[in-house]
């Protein structure tokens, strides 16, 4: 059964690459969104199992999107994986709990690592 993944990043090339790599496995159905302010509406419509969120975006950052979606009971089962370009892995280790206790990935991330993380998060109850 394919899982629905919503990818939100202001960089179109990134969302495209993620979509290509994920869909190539045929395990995922991927929707991409480059405007952070459209992300919530897209999530409501698409009903993803997991949202891959860029942390720093203009207009609305990833944390804000996540906290708004979490308040919506119908969407409360959605899992999140954050991606950020401004921290190192060490940062994630020491500061990982800063933003909602969610999974973080430091850009650039290898596709196999991205998939492994997504699978791990999806597997969490």
């Amino acid at each position, binding site marked *: 059964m394919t899982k629905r993944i919503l990818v939100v990043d202001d*960089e179109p*090339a*990134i969302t495209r*690459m*993620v979509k*290509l*790599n994920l869909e*190539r496995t045929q395990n995922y159905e991927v929707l991409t969104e480059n405007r952070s302010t459209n992300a919530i509406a897209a999530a409501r419509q698409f009903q993803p199992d997991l949202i891959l969120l860029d942390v*720093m975006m203009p207009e609305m950052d990833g*944390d804000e999107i996540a906290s708004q979606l979490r308040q919506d009971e119908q969407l409360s089962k959605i899992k999140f994986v954050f*991606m950020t*370009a*401004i*921290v*190192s*892995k*060490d*940062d994630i280790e*020491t*500061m990982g*709990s*800063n*933003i909602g206790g969610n999974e973080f990935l*430091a*850009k*650039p*991330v*290898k*596709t*196999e690592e*991205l998939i492994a993380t997504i699978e791990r998060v999806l597997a969490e109850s």
Partner: protein
Amino acid sequence: MGTMPLLKLLYTACLLPLLLYCVSGMAGELALTADERQWLDDHPVIRIAPDPDFSPFEWISKDGVYHGMAADYVWLIGKKLGVRFEVIHGYKWSQIIAMAQQHEVDLLPAVGETEERMKYLLFTKPYISVPGVLVSSDNQESIEKLGGHKIAVVRDYMWDDLVSKLYPDILIERVDDLKFGLELTALGAVDAMVTDLASATNMIQQTNINNLHIVSDATPKLGYMELSMGVRSDWPQLRSILDKALASLDTAEIIAIRSNWIKFNEPAFWRDSNFWYSLLIALSVVLLLFSGFIIWNRMLKKEVALRTRELQTAQKQLMQAEKMETIGRLAAGVAHEVKNPLAIIQMGVDYLSHEMSQDKDSLEVIKDIDDAVRRADNVILGLLDFSRDKKLELKQGSLNDVISSSLHLVDHELRQRNIKAETLLAENLPAMALDANKLQQVFINLFMNAVHAMDHNGELRISSEVKRLEEQSDLARDSDGLFTINEQVIRVEVADTGPGIREQDKAKIFELFYTTKVVGEGTGLGLSVTRNIINLHHGTIDIANRPQGGASVVLMFKLNEGENQ
């Protein structure tokens, strides 16, 4: 005090003119009777015989001129009466007395009234009055105790008469003049000399004898030497005329005469011990002040040098912190701008590696690109890590010391902005494993945040304590859920009187690159780095608004094992 040193008395002798008084008290017109005028017409020349050596009252100078206070009176009265006084001189006082007894002279201008002299002289009312004194070289207390001792008096002076009568058991040494008597006293040939205060001070000053003392108040019986004019006893008219003449002198005339002779009472200032005492004290004070000034100056210089060094150190540290912040900001900017493209390349290569033919060359190209992305990423990570604190150098130390030294470093900033710092640091705070440099960075950061929040005027309050977390409200400030109820912690609070923290900022304040400061003032690295360091110390940091206004940052650290009971 029974006696006082001569020089002290010389100083007080300037009061002497006060003791000289006018005979009648009130000046009046010279109203002579017709008989008296006739008498004066019949006696146009009156022979006077002054004491040749009775300064300052009267004396004859070497050129035969008659001087002194009495002389001034005589010349003034002569002018008023229109008579000529012929000065008889060239005789000793004892000879003059003898001549007066024989009426060979008509008038003795300044002479004390004694019973003996009343036999051949008629006295006017006294017009000069001076106290009698005892002069000695060895601090005699009183003439009363000098029975059997030798006392000098000038022969035939009133003191001769007086001492002989009052103290019959005193051995009297009669001398011809005052100077000789004082010399005998100074040399110890006699035990003391009795004379009047004015003559004594005057002569001591003239002769520079400096080992004599004047007993000021020990001779009440000696009383005052009152000088009158002594008229030959067969000339009662003259006595009456002179009394009238003396009474007619007005105050201005008397003051003029006195002021001529006041000078002799003024001792040279350097002869006054008070002067030397005062000078010594003044010099000591000046020396003390000067030494104090030099010491103070040196202390000030040292202090300035110390402060300058401290300021330089503080500036260096702040500059270093700023530099690190700049590098951090740069690294973050670079990271953001470079890592996104790297992510695109990375995932692009991942995609292509599956889509492309799997020939050896293609796989190598893909691997090379993959490696290049890793390398570029490592450079960025290195740059980011450079500006972060990753590892601690832990040593047992006092958190209070770190707080104090950090506060010291921002002291300049506090004073410039008129912000008062108050510390309430618990004395019993146990030592803990800490990285002093890193924690100093934390406290400087917290203090500077508070300073920026308050801007100007305010109070920064820093407290430390060992606290047992007894209530849920205590735990509420454990933002990381690190501690349990009833656990003892080291708790530090940094409170300010600024505007506090906005509700919407609370959740994100410790996030990396989150800042409420205007562009250019803050980087957003501060509190995230702070939290990182605190966490590395197994501590928590929490920020909240105080009920009374302002923000409060609470740090809590685990107590060492064994100290938590």
